[in-house]
């Protein structure tokens, strides 16, 4: 229950950040709430805030993982959020090496 109370006080963006940061040891982590771009969307009629986020994450844990696996890792960490109104993520998931190359 304590965590439920905290959920009300802390924005979903910061919860997403915390969850991803601690599990993936991200060197770069950006979470942007872009829900406003999806207001009026059929699935978010009654609850149109904190539904859509852009996530950019650079983590050594993505090393050797396909894109599908990387995205699944992110989704798995955010299961609670997906069950509680998070509707969609746009995910950029890279390894530190892939970022260096650019």
């Amino acid at each position: 229950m304590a965590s439920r109370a905290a959920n009300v006080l802390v924005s979903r963006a910061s919860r997403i950040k915390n969850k991803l940061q601690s599990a993936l040891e991200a060197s770069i982590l950006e979470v942007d709430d872009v829900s406003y771009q999806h207001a009026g969307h059929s699935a978010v009629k009654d609850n149109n805030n904190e539904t859509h986020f852009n996530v950019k994450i650079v983590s050594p844990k993505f090393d050797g993982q396909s894109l599908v696996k990387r995205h699944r890792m992110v989704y798995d960490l955010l299961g609670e959020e997906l069950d509680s109104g998070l509707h969609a993520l746009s995910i950029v998931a890279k390894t530190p090496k892939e970022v260096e190359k650019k």
Partner: protein
Amino acid sequence: MIYMKGIPDAPMCGFSSLAVKVLKTYKVPLSARNILENPELKNAVKGFSHWPTFPQIFINGEFIGGSDIILIMHQSGELKDKLIHLLPKVDKEE
């Protein structure tokens, strides 16, 4: 096969719309199911692919990913490689 929100000619979500747009640039046969009309199908697909959001794209039965992944694969040329053997043979009608 794309499991999406809405239908290819009238997508009900920006991500589904993006995925359809990408796939349509390849002249491959595209079948689509509208998961908004079928909650059971929606849940079955989610469970099968272990993927929580839509759209979801399958090529020859293989799960490819959602709209982010399809777009990246489109840009990198990987998608073309996956689809190339599905393209109609070269005898053009025009």
